[in-house]
């Protein structure tokens, strides 16, 4: 809290105490409600002044609110002081509060008057208020206002005349109304030209101004008609309170801004990861209370900015009533908002910071996503390279060693036929060599098949899965296998899943039978192998399920294992498949 503020607070407290102590003096009943309502209004404006000072330390708004507060309080405080001087000054300044209100209304919301003309209007308001009151006081005897002999003297009095005093008051009404009309017209013009945030803070001011002007003008006119209504409890004690809407507006707005800061945090936190810039803009606009907010990004070539709807934005010349606040240091993004928000620099800075955080978050997210994508792609490439290497090995075995062994077998067969009958010992020798060669061929065939099943590349899943089932030591039923070809990596993975699953069934499950199905669903291929064995297989266990899960993940698929103890094992691989 600034020193200025503390001083202001003390002044307020002192004034308040003084006002109420002195208003304790006996006064005639009709004035009491008037004093009380005036004190309430004055204190309310002082409180609003403090709030405004705290929120906008650089703005004159706090000062203006305080001026209005004192304009209400001072005359009715010093009027109770002993002596004629204070009494005269109090009466002279009684109406200054009206001019101060006009000043405040015209300076809303920046605290600054917008043109020289407006300054002149405000000066005219002050001058007119003081001038007319001063002139009328030349003929005013305090007894005209119901003040009896206990009242101090009016030092300005030249000649006491009720008719002159009434005449001056009546004559001043058209001038007062004209000035008030100009002020109201200016306020309406401010309101009409305001957009977005400014419009939102101008609208309540407009209505408050209309109400206050209606109230005070009505009272002026009625009191000059001498109908007696103007001295009623309503006009003295209740109607003036309408001006309380002014301080209420500032205090409510302070509360709103405080909640807006909270809303800003919530808005950014609630944004789901990777939300579009459009969503971010909407969240910020809601938090800031500026529906015209634009979030603009610099084009990569630096040639300009585009907002979230793809419209080009002139950042250097944002247009009338618009202001630009950069989001990040590098000038990658900017907020283009209502110029009126420059009076809320803290809120705008916080919004920009929140936008920066959200954008940085999105950028990091995109980076992580890209890295993940790279890792995924490289894993898929590694697996594919492995598959290709296996295919090559199998082909080399087939075209090389296997062919040579077949040729060797044939040669041995021929040799044995030649030796037949002539040399039984040689014949037996060649026979056993031939047998060895055939054994070697069988082993080599199994080895080659284990490295890579040629039937998979040649005929696809149907033949390869059939082959697996034919050699499975556990009775296995195929319920479905689609008769179509899929990408090589997907076919290889599906085959690998079935192969491992059947091997596990044979090794661990002690199952009576197994069932397998491969189903083609939109966008995916689902491989399912289940058995009626002992269950209890663990994905992280040593049963090869870990490797299987890795293999499935390498093509972007998911492996699910359901294996309750004693309840069989169900293994499902969900593979993406275009």
């Amino acid at each position: 809290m600034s020193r200025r503020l503390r001083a202001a607070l003390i002044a307020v407290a002192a004034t308040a105490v003084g006002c109420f102590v002195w208003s304790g003096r006996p006064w005639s009943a009709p004035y009491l409600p008037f004093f009380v309502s005036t004190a309430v209004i004055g204190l309310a404006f002082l409180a609003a002044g403090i709030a405004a000072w705290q929120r906008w330390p650089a703005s004159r708004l706090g000062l203006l609110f305080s001026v209005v507060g004192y304009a209400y309080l001072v005359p009715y405080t010093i009027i109770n002081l002993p002596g004629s001087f204070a009494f005269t000054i109090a009466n002279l300044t009684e109406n200054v509060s009206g001019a101060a209100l006009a000043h405040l209304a015209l300076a809303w919301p920046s605290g600054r008057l917008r043109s020289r003309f407006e300054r002149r209007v405000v000066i005219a308001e002050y001058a007119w208020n003081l001038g007319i009151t001063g002139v009328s006081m030349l003929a005013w005897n305090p007894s005209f206002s119901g003040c009896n002999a206990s009242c101090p003297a009016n030092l300005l009095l030249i000649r006491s005349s009720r008719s002159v005093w009434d005449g001056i008051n009546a004559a001043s009404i058209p001038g007062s109304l004209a000035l008030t009309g100009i002020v109201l017209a200016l306020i309406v013009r401010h309101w009409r030209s305001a957009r977005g945030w400014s419009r939102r803070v101008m609208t309540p001011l407009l209505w408050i101004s209309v109400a206050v002007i209606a109230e005070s003008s009505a009272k002026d006119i009625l009191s000059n008609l001498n109908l007696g209504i103007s001295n009623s409890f309503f006009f003295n004690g209740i109607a003036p309170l309408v001006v309380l809407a002014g301080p209420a507006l500032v205090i409510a707005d302070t509360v709103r801004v405080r909640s807006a800061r909270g809303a800003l945090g919530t808005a950014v936190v609630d944004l789901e990861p990777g939300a579009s810039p459009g969503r971010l803009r909407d969240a910020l606009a809601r938090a800031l209370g500026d529906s015209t907010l634009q979030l603009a990004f610099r084009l990569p070539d630096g040639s300009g900015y585009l907002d979230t709807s793809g419209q080009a934005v002139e950042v250097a010349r944002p247009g009338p009533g618009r202001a630009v606040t950069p989001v990040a240091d590098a000038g990658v993004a900017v907020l283009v908002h209502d110029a009126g928000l420059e009076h809320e620099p803290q809120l705008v800075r916080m919004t920009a910071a929140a936008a920066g955080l959200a954008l940085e978050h999105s950028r990091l997210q995109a980076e992580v996503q890209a890295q993940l994508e790279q890792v995924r792609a490289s894993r898929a490439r590694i697996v594919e390279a492995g598959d290709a290497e296996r295919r090559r090995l199998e082909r080399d075995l087939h075209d090389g060693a296997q062919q040579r062994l077949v040729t060797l077998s044939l040669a041995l067969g021929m040799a044995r036929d030649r030796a037949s009958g002539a040399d039984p010992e040689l014949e037996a020798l060649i026979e056993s060599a031939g047998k060895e060669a055939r054994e070697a061929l069988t082993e080599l065939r199994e080895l080659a098949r284990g490295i890579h099943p040629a039937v998979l590349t040649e005929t696809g899943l149907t033949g390869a899965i059939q082959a697996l089932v034919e050699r499975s030591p556990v009775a296995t039923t195929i319920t479905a296998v689609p008769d179509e070809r899929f990408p090589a990596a997907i076919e290889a993975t599906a085959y690998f899943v079935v192969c491992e699953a059947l091997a596990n069934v044979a090794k661990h499950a002690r199952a009576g039978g197994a069932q397998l199905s491969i189903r083609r669903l939109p966008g995916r291929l689902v491989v399912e192998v289940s058995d009626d064995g002992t269950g209890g297989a663990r994905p992280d266990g040593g049963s090869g399920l870990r490797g299987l899960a890795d293999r499935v993940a390498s093509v972007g698929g998911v492996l699910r294992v359901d294996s309750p103890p004693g309840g069989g094992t169900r293994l499902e691989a969900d593979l993406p498949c275009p």
Partner: protein
Amino acid sequence: MSVSPGSAAPAGAPLRVVIAEDTVLLREGLRRVLTDAGLDVAGTAGDAAELISLVAALRPDVVLADIRMPPTQTTEGLQAALEIRRRWPGTAVIVLSQHVETEHLFELLADEPRGIGYVLKERVAEIAQFTDAIRRVAAGESVIDPQIVSRLVARPRRDSPLGGLSERELAVLALMAEGRSNHAIAAALYMSPKTVETHVGNMFSKLGLLPAAEDHRRVLAVLTYLRR
């Protein structure tokens, strides 16, 4: 492509064979073995295209084709065999394979199992059996490699009528799947043809198969049953 001179086949002449095999050593070995066995090797080819044009030119009785040949080294031999069967239906074909998998076998048998052989490549070393297989397909029989059949018969099954067959019946079943005639089965198992016929009848009713009059139809029915 090499074509032996004087290969026009007069009636009662030796069987005319065309060999397709990309390994030169093996191809020449086969030519020699078959010639020695009294067959007429009319021509040899190193790939599928060559084989087709040889068959078109020579119209042999039997074609012997390696399943894997250039250029892709996958199933060219099988595709060529199917084409030959389509264009020259009377031609007997034996496909030599390194695979015990049944997928290719069924592809080959699907249309017309008559005069079809599917044997593992190493069978060529058992020269007498191999030449016998050539003569059998030339005569319209089917020849399925015993190793493939025995694997199918030995598969574990649950609740299958196969479990109720006697060892003797299973042996008959396997020989049927290999493409043997009742007569050959009787000779192989030292039974009377009558007994074989009884076994076959019993088995077909136990397995719920319709009795097939022709041996090669019977092969397909039994293999399909064993495979499922």
